[in-house]
């Protein structure tokens, strides 16, 4: 089982779209996949038309094992399950704060699924908190969507600094360009410079696409509804690259 997190400190960078599409592509290949929606906004659950189960409460992910299992929902797509978002994840930090070995609760609880799934994808909330720290511990690979702008560069440096601070392996971090608009000069320049500056930049680039925006209307992964769209192909390249990371 491999745990792959989609993480960004900034919102609106295509994180959820990436999580949904990449998880779908993994499942389509026959890998048993679980998408864990940790974002209290619940966007990835929304994309799969799954509502948060009533009364599943804050503590699900902390209690682990059977409690999590009970709340897992099968999506309409073969091999792909989802653990829907829970509004009360907002309070997760407070609870984690009082837990023992608080940075590793998520890691421990996800390990219960090592026989059930080949991949677990984590769609993470955009901030740095105790929840994020848990995510960093639990993930084998952390994918960071990166809009080619200077602001993103700054944010990414902050993340690296945080990793140093908590003595977390930066080798886990893999940024990739997201919402790329080639007609913009800035984007072109950043794409030119950044991969040389930052190690482990993935080759795949997700273009800005109205198809991706429409995912919210169609409420399905893009490669399932628009397989020929350039954005679908880009997600496919991204998944192949991530899979090869080993």
């Amino acid at each position, binding site marked *: 089982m491999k745990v792959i997190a989609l993480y960004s400190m900034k919102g609106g960078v295509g994180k959820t779209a990436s999580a949904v599409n990449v998880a779908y592509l993994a499942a389509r290949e026959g890998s048993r996949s679980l998408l864990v929606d940790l974002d209290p906004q619940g966007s990835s659950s929304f994309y799969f*038309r*799954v*509502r948060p189960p009533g009364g599943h409460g804050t503590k699900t992910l902390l209690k682990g094992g059977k409690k999590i299992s009970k*709340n*897992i*929902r*099968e999506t*309409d797509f073969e091999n792909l399950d989802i653990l829907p978002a829970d509004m009360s994840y907002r309070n997760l930090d407070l609870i984690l704060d009082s837990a023992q070995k608080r940075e590793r609760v998520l890691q421990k609880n996800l390990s219960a699924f090592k026989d059930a799934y080949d991949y677990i994808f984590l769609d993470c909330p955009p901030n740095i908190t105790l929840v994020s720290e848990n995510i960093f511990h639990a993930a084998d690979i952390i994918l960071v969507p990166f809009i080619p702008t200077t602001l993103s560069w700054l944010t990414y440096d902050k993340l690296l600094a945080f990793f140093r601070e908590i003595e977390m392996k930066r080798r886990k971090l893999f940024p990739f360009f997201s919402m790329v608009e080639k007609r913009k000069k800035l984007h072109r320049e950043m794409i030119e410079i950044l991969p040389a500056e930052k190690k482990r930049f993935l080759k795949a680039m997700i273009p800005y696409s109205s198809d991706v925006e429409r995912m919210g209307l169609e*409420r399905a992964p893009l490669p399932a509804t628009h397989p020929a769209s350039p954005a679908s192909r880009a997600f496919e390249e991204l998944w192949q690259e991530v899979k090869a990371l080993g």
Partner: protein
Amino acid sequence: MNTEWPAVLLFKTAADKAKLEKKIPSAYRFRWFHAETAHIRFWDTFDRRLEKKKYTLYSSDHIFTLYHTEDSGREWGVSLKKTGDTPLLAGAFPDGNFRRELAAVAGIRAVLPSPEIVKHSSAFSILNEDQKTIARASWMVLSVKEADISATAVVIQPLRGYESETEYLIRRLPPSARHQSVEGMLTSLLPAHEPYISRPRLEFDVNEGMAPALRKILIAHFKVMRQNERGLLGNWDTEFLHDFRVAGRRMRSALSLIKPILHPGAKQELVLTLKRLGRFTGPVRDLDVYLLARADFEKMIPAEMAGQGFRKFFGRLTADHRRKFLALKAFLESREYQDILNTWDGYLKSWEKHVINDPDLREMAASLLKKHFKKILKDGGRLKPSSPDEQFHDLRIEAKKLRYLLEFFSTLYPQDTIQNTVRQLKTFQDNLGAFNDYSVQIEMLRGFLQSAEKKNDQDQVKTLSALIAVSYQGKEVLKKEYHAIYKAFSGERNRLLYQQLFGGGV
């Protein structure tokens, strides 16, 4: 709620798709997919070996699936080009795991098809108000033409996490019977099987005498004969003839051992009909035994003695079998056989008229069993390795008589004790039976050898001479082993067992 999924629902009254959809709350809708038609049959041997060993075999069009009903990991599938309603031996399927597994369960028996179930099914999904699929399902219209049955069923598998929502919808559907599996639901549509037991276990009314008991024995075995007729005529597998024949022999034994009950004229007439039947069934059965043991025969002799001669010999056996089988078939379809059946029917119906004696059931059964046991002890004790073959044959017949009597009256005695005696006797009989098989075999082989010699067919002469030599050796070994087997059978413990069961000194 702890429910088994998928839910397999057989509706109590016929329903159509539209009616079904109307029962569902409006927030939900069905999305229909492809429809298909399949022709399904379930298969089992005549004596239901698959069912007894917890296997199910069914065909859907040309695909056969065999599985163990209590171990989901054990499932095998195979495709057969030509399928219909003809019974199939394991050998009819392509070589592989499926065939090996079926052969292990069905043995030499053919699997027979159930009436055909025609299944028109449409796959559909159940969507909630978010247009999220919560369950996948199949709607089925089923019909069994031969039984004039039609029914509708739905199979629903909720997606993970949507079990209780699905259960809520199921409760809104028209009333239905919930089955454990689709196969179970389908088989519930088929007519019930007439139970078949080749050796009927008979319960007697001990207040009645031996005459009604004898009638009961005869009726039960007459039924076994008749149950096997169809499979025998169709040559579905060799066991139909075997069971048919054994039932006849047991009837003959009952008539001649349990006496005097019937008027001698009546008894004589009935025995003669069975003798006449045996004239046709015996030769075919003997050839069946040889043909079934072909591989064993081949192993018995060195390779250089087999080859061409062996193939020719078995070719002759096959041709001979065909001829004799056709003669048997013609006999069973003849007026004469009809008359035999009518004779039996007549006697069994007007039974009391022919009864001349009706002794106490328990007393007579015990005295018969004691008498035959004693006779075996006496005759068997005289046998030496040098004794002529005929004496061994006679003893075999005696043992068989005792075996039949034990089985006829087994319910009069405590089950574990009586079964113990049957087991003891079986070991004893096995030795004598094998001895007899060799003798009959040698005699048959000699006949074939003579004709091969006349034709100067050296290949066959070589094979047959080798087979005779090996059979002779086998027979002599059994003769030597006999003494120890007799000693065990006639031992103190077994004598006490008989004494305990049937009373008196043994």
